[in-house]
């Protein structure tokens, strides 16, 4: 009939029918709403710009962990190693005279990626427990390294004097944190776009295949080791950029950018929000840091106690984190 044919022609011209059942990368309305929030916050909550920058940086760091944990299924207890490597790279560059921010980020990404590649060679061998121990050991090794090389890194006192040049030659990194916030937001958003595309790509599908059916992957001809090395390297680069952002915006690199507390913290943030969903990590980072900002000041003991209890409850009753719980809730509602 003429009507149906006209519709078909219109459809063919406007968009190709994406097949149901595979990722097509289309943007959901909620995603757009999500990204408007930090933009709005810049204007609506000017007193919280510094906290906001911290959230954006943590979001990028958690995103990097989601790539290896949520998508490839590698549990790492030493992910802060790449964060710290990126931070020290950017910090040392600035301290030694090169304060250009964006090339600093690039340098941090490259160095972190190189370290990530080397670590990935160790991590793909062995079982879950071995991997846990190796990642833990590597994380601690880097902390020790930074501590011992105190003449370079400043040791436990940290690396101060990280002065940055103007961003793109135009914007000074001001005390109020305006430039820093916009800088962090743009970097996070751009890298999120990269991660999002990666996750919806054949590589992303392959990684989910490794996570979902490790035994079947070699049986369909997939080079599992190569894929894991690839994503580990990419994730390390992301983490390195996050660390570099921290160094550049706070003008300081503390040794706590490495070490187990930082690795444990990013793991907690990811799990709270929900791993394997990209947005889960960002939400988890935001909630964690907001709660920390409010509660830890009141009583560090109660903060730690509350965090521990929350972890136990999440693991026992809400395994998918916030987004996982939301997904289950909506699935039940629509009867799927």
């Amino acid at each position, binding site marked *: 009939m003429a009507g149906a044919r006209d519709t078909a022609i219109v459809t063919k011209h406007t968009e190709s029918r994406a097949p149901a059942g595979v990722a097509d990368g289309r943007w959901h309305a909620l995603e757009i709403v999500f990204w408007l929030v930090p933009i709005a916050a810049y204007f609506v909550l000017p007193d919280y710009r510094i906290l906001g920058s911290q959230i954006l940086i943590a979001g990028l760091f958690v995103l990097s962990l989601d790539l290896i944990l949520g998508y490839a299924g590698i549990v790492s207890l030493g992910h802060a190693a790449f964060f710290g490597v990126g931070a020290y790279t950017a910090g040392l560059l600035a301290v030694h005279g090169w304060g250009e921010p964006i090339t600093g980020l690039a340098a941090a990404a490259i160095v972190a990626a190189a370290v990530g590649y080397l670590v990935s060679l160790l991590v793909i061998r062995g079982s879950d427990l*071995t991997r846990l*121990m190796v990642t833990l*050991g590597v994380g601690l090794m880097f902390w*020790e390294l930074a501590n011992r090389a105190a003449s370079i890194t400043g040791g436990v006192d940290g690396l101060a004097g990280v002065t940055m040049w103007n961003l793109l030659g135009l914007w000074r990194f001001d005390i109020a944190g305006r430039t820093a916030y916009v800088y962090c937001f743009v970097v996070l958003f751009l890298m999120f776009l990269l991660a999002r595309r990666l996750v919806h790509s054949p590589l992303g599908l392959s990684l989910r295949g490794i996570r979902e059916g490790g035994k079947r992957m070699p049986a369909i001809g997939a080079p599992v080791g190569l894929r894991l090395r690839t994503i580990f390297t990419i994730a390390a680069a992301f983490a390195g950029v996050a660390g570099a952002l921290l160094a550049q915006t706070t003008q300081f690199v503390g040794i706590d950018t490495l070490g187990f507390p930082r690795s444990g913290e990013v793991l907690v943030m990811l799990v709270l929000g929900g791993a394997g969903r990209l947005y889960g990590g960002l939400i988890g980072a935001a909630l964690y840091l907001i709660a920390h900002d409010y509660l830890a000041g009141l009583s560090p003991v109660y903060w*730690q106690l509350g*965090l*521990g209890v929350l972890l136990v409850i999440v693991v*026992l009753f809400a395994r998918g984190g916030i987004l996982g719980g939301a997904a289950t809730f909506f699935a039940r509602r629509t009867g799927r």
Partner: protein
Amino acid sequence: MSIVGVLFDGIAYGSLMFLIAIGLSITLGLMNFVNLAHGAFAMLGGYVSVILLQRAGIPFLAALPAAFFIAAVAGVVLERALYQRLYRASHLDQVLFSIGLVYISIAVATYFFGPSQQPVRLPAFLQGQVEIGGRGFGIYRLFLIATVAVLTIGLQLFIDRTRFGAAIRASVDNATAAAGLGINVNLVFALTFALGSGLAGLGGALGIDVLGLDPNFPLKYMVYFLLVVAVGGAGTIKGPLYAALILGVFDVAGKYYVPQVGGFVIYLLMVVLLLLFPAGLYGRRT
């Protein structure tokens, strides 16, 4: 300090590590549960002995069994209430759960005891040194090594010669088959967890002088216990024993001969050993 001195200190330190970590080896091998909170039981034993020594005036040697007992009871209670729900969960869930327990234990310890190191006064007969072959050896460290040696032999005999020990061995090997043979696997799990936690508590109490005791104990030493078990091989006694002794000696030697390198040596050693022996030195279950 001579090489003998370094060896002696290293063996004492390693023995203590072994005592605390052996419980983790058995529970990891038995329930395949990655328990990062194992050090919290050691810490519990430590604080129990502190309370008994300082506030109740109970003698040192009597406080030790109390530390064992209370840590064991805590182990059973937590195992039945919480741990057993996660035996089939992913390792990630187990890691997160036990990290949560660690944070809770640190918070509780800080609340009741404050953040600083607990001082311990050893009984007079355990202080000082004794001369053997022209060298001085710390009496307390001799006591440590002797105690751990006796306990290890006892533990090995228990596992090898008793019915319950056989039940443990069967359940480690194949829990489903063991259940099919009529072994009450739940009971085995609960009592084994109690035993492991109790030994950890005892180790924590014994180790205050050597390892120190503050609320961060579980985090500070977590990696060492895991290292001993991962490198030695979960589910065995011999493996973690050798791993602990090697670790102890290398750690002391490292700190003495190359102090500028510090803990780096240990972590590097661990990574290398794990790469060479992914299932641990003696392990079969990972």
